[in-house]
């Protein structure tokens, strides 16, 4: 049912989603913590910027990325190489695109925690870092898990940004959604069906997993 090229595409897509999810968590957890706890004046502006990809068409993000990562941009001068048409470029694009789906649930989880646990930790003389890792993170773990699953799934299904900056290189930037698009365009519907069906099953599993986590979290609270 799956030929070698399809397996390569599926593995590449899983790799992209996995790497992007790790990057998203490394950036997203501290960012969500700051958004939840900070009293800084400008934090809602940062929150809005993080959430922009929810409403921006992926083509807008792709267009800006193509220019920002192109040979004439300061960003390219800074990192010393152009990123379009590379796996690293897709990770950057997917991270920006999926950021709100990771940051927002984690921020909500941190906010739902309230001051009580935090004050209790302080009373027990836990340092801020100690309290963060041993109190805040475990309490927020359902939110973090939800964010991770959403980020992973969103990256798996990402199409517009990848289409704009990917260049459809097998094994490097040709991911599932692009492969499905090309199979449909070339009237190879049998192959399109196989990959599309796989995406459908995966999406179903992701949303089901999130529902289960939510239900468990609620029963833990009561």
């Amino acid at each position, binding site marked *: 049912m799956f030929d070698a090229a399809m397996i390569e595409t599926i593995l590449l897509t899983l790799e992209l989603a996995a790497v992007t999810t790790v990057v998203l968590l490394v950036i997203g957890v501290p960012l969500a913590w700051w958004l939840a706890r900070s009293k800084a004046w400008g934090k809602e502006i940062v929150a809005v910027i993080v959430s922009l990809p929810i409403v921006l068409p992926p083509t807008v993000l792709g267009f800006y990325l193509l220019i920002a990562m*192109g040979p004439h941009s300061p960003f390219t001068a800074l990192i010393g190489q152009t990123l379009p048409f590379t796996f690293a470029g897709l990770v950057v694009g997917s991270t920006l695109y999926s950021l709100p789906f990771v940051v927002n649930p984690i921020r909500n989880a941190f906010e739902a925690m309230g001051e009580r646990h935090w004050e209790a930790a302080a009373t027990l003389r836990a340092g801020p870092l100690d309290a963060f890792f041993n109190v805040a993170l475990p309490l927020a773990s359902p939110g973090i898990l939800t964010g991770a699953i959403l980020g992973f799934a969103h990256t798996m299904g990402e199409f517009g940004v990848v289409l704009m900056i990917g*260049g*459809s290189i097998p094994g490097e930037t040709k991911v599932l959604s692009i492969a499905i698009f090309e199979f449909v365009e070339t009237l190879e519907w049998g192959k399109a069906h196989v990959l599309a069906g796989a995406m459908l099953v995966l999406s179903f599993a992701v949303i089901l997993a999130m529902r289960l986590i939510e239900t468990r979290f609620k029963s833990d609270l009561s």
Partner: protein
Amino acid sequence: MAQAITRFSIGLAVVALASFPAGPVHAGETTVAVAANFTLAAKRLGAAFEAATGHRVVFSFGSTGQLFTQIVHGAPFDAFLAADTERPERAEKELLGVPGTRFTYAIGGLVLWSADADLIEGTPSVLSDKALRHVAIANPVTAPYGAAAIDTMNGLGVLPDLEPRLVAGKSISQTYQFVATGNAPVGFVALSQVKESGTGSRWVVPDDLHRPLRQDAILLEHGRENGAARAFLEFLKGAEAVKIIAGLGYRVPDQN
């Protein structure tokens, strides 16, 4: 009260008049699917056609493969200007096109192009440069200009070496954009896309290095009864259209 009603009716009349375009009373409207390489030509032809006939023409651009898929799925296009001969032929065979309306409206040219004015010196030698990061082409499966680019690299014997560095745009328009932004240092684009600008550097690929880029048009079943669609296809064969098409670097078949 009466005054208000009068004013209201005048308002209605103005709105009604404004929504009718000027021009002949019998003006019709047609939607035409056009291969991406022909974008600029189609826009100019559309303007000339509208001025000459009073009909309105709306274009939908994409790669030939993408447009053909949409036609198979019942897209409401009246005519199809493809970048190859194969898809219009298939449209006719599969009863999506009106038999006997197929004709070649242009023969395209391929060019290796760079936004950098010094990179290409009128020869393909840059393709042998190991340091060349990427070569942009149109998707060879859906876009005939992409397949012609593959032919060319094959003929030059550089394909196996370049294969890992090829980046594919979904249509020749996206390929052009990859090169124009400098993200791909060079790429194979349609001659019509760079004919007039004169920017960057280029090597015009000799026709014998790739399959002919004969571009056929066909009236689709959806447009069978559409006078504006038939008029547009007739207009394409006329002297005024041929002048516009040839001006963008296409060759036009002799029988026209």
